[in-house]
């Protein structure tokens, strides 16, 4: 077991938010440790090819320019520790006298659990694709849009010969273009919402939105490119089921004109993103149910301070808003922290923070429009009773409903943890990340509550599944 290491700042997550935060804390002279379970810096939007790969024109599109510039700057910094390939399992209270935090970290290559101490912590864990249950969704070949995208970006692997995309998020347009550019075939892009619903979200906000015209232009250009390449793009086309034996062979969609069966070996869902917030919930910081896809976003003040002194959040952990906002919020968290630590002059810090907040405010209309335009809530497919909702513990919608009904007999205000105890949904390897939102929505529907009123699973250590043997190598907390 390694000795504990001590820093002014530990940052969880090396994506746009974590990198922007690190740039500020390092710039203020604070000793900084950046931790990510991925092997390289960049986060989800910039999942880098492995070292030793050379990829011509990697992520050279305009949408990636600002994040790439940040990545290049941070990779040149040498005054900090980057722990790649280290999974953060938990954030807990630090030394009894000195305060601060103790992070439990698993080095994936060597195993075991190490402890990292930090006076302050920034959680910038990002977000993950909303997993949506429907008949056949557990077939190999059905995956998240992010999975397809990150396979293309990093190892440069096309996961299928014919890839179908479905969901409600416009990121599908970007992904379809990336598949084509990689020489792949897109079997169709299926937006579940009708075109008029998307235009209705766009219309009233147009003046504010036009200030962030670049992504709109890219979207329109992308749609035109897909049409030209002969890729069918449908609106109001909702997934019904996925079919196949040992793996996916086709998906069936329903729209006004009738049913369509689309042959494909990969079908990728894109209904939006849930904040990655298990670490902040575990340590007890306040969160709230997020709009749209849901999940838990961390409550924070205008300086990105969570409800726990010394714990800051940045990027999608504080609410899904895209990589430009993630970078700005990361920088804001870093600046606030540096001021709180006395490493940055208050007046100078306040000036920089105000400028960052102004830039975030300018992006707000676009973020709000995108959220409304991509909102999956009215378009989520319905699982059948035998469909598994919890993939890890194989809990069907039928078993889940029975557990919900049993809980309802005892107590009106029951939450997801009570249901979990009865049917094991959320007890598996993913620690409930995949099914929690679905369990909450089913409870809400059955008991006539809003999802935001239903308590989620109690977030427990470890945030990532670790074999008991490796946990036992864990250091006893220093006293």
């Amino acid at each position, binding site marked *: 077991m390694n000795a504990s290491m001590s820093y002014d700042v530990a940052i969880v997550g090396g994506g746009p938010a974590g990198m922007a935060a690190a740039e500020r804390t390092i710039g203020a002279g604070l000793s900084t440790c950046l931790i990510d379970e991925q092997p390289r810096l960049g986060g989800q939007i910039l999942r880098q090819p492995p070292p030793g790969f050379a990829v011509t024109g990697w992520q050279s599109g305009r949408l990636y320019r600002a994040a790439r510039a940040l990545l290049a700057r941070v990779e040149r910094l040498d005054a900090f520790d980057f722990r790649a390939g280290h999974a953060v399992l938990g954030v807990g209270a630090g030394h009894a006298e000195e305060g601060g935090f103790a992070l439990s970290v698993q080095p994936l290559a060597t195993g075991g659990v190490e402890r990292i101490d930090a006076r302050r912590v920034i959680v910038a864990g990002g977000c993950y694709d909303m997993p949506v249950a429907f008949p056949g969704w557990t077939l190999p070949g059905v995956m998240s849009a992010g999975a397809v995208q990150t396979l293309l970006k990093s190892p440069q692997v096309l996961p299928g010969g014919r890839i179908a995309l479905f969901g409600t998020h416009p990121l599908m347009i970007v992904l379809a273009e990336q598949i084509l550019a990689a020489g792949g075939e897109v079997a169709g892009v299926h937006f579940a919402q009708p075109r008029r619903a998307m235009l209705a979200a766009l219309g009233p906000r147009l003046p504010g939105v036009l200030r962030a015209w670049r992504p709109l232009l890219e979207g329109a250009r992308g749609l035109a490119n897909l049409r030209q390449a002969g890729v069918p793009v449908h609106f109001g086309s909702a997934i019904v089921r996925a079919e196949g034996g040992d793996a996916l062979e086709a998906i069936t969609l329903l729209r006004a004109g009738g049913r369509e069966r689309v042959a494909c070996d990969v079908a990728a869902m894109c209904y939006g993103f849930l904040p990655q917030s298990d670490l902040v919930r575990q340590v007890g910081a306040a969160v709230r149910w997020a709009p749209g896809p849901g999940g838990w976003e961390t409550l924070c003040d205008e300086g990105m301070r969570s409800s726990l002194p010394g714990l800051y959040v940045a990027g999608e952990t504080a609410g899904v808003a895209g990589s430009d906002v993630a970078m700005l919020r990361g920088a804001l968290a870093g600046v606030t922290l540096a001021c709180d630590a006395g490493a940055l002059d208050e007046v100078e810090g306040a000036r920089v923070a105000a400028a960052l907040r102004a830039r975030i405010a300018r992006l707000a209309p676009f973020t709000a429009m995108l959220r409304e335009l991509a909102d999956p809530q009215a378009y989520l497919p319905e699982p059948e009773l035998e469909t598994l909702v919890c993939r890890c513990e194989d809990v069907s919608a039928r078993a889940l409903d029975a557990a919900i009904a049993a809980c309802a007999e005892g107590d009106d205000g029951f939450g997801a943890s009570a249901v979990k105890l009865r049917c094991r949904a959320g007890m598996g390897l993913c620690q409930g990340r995949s099914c929690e939102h679905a369990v909450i929505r089913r409870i809400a529907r059955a008991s006539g509550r809003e999802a935001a009123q239903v308590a989620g699973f109690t977030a427990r250590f470890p945030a990532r599944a670790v074999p008991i043997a*490796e946990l036992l190598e864990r250091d006893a907390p220093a006293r």
Partner: protein
Amino acid sequence: MSGARRIEEGVRRPDRVTLRLDGADLAACPGESVLAALVASGARRLRDDREGTARGAFCNMGTCSECTVWVRKGAAAWVRRRACLVPVEADLCVLTHAPEAT
């Protein structure tokens, strides 16, 4: 088998190494994830659930745990890992099912 493949145009990769996957040889690129190597080889079924139904990877970003396999480097012990987070290297053995207790 799927129509999966490595993108070749504009991509230079290091020389392949050989993985042992469930006892068979699989050529893979050092540095790419074990999951990427499996996907590129056309494999989609990674495990069976309690009903014996085929399952595959879902997120490729460490959150779903559907890609969990057992890996062993050289003479070290088997450890359970998410295949999407394990870089390929020489001397790596991968099992998609639990190793026999010895």
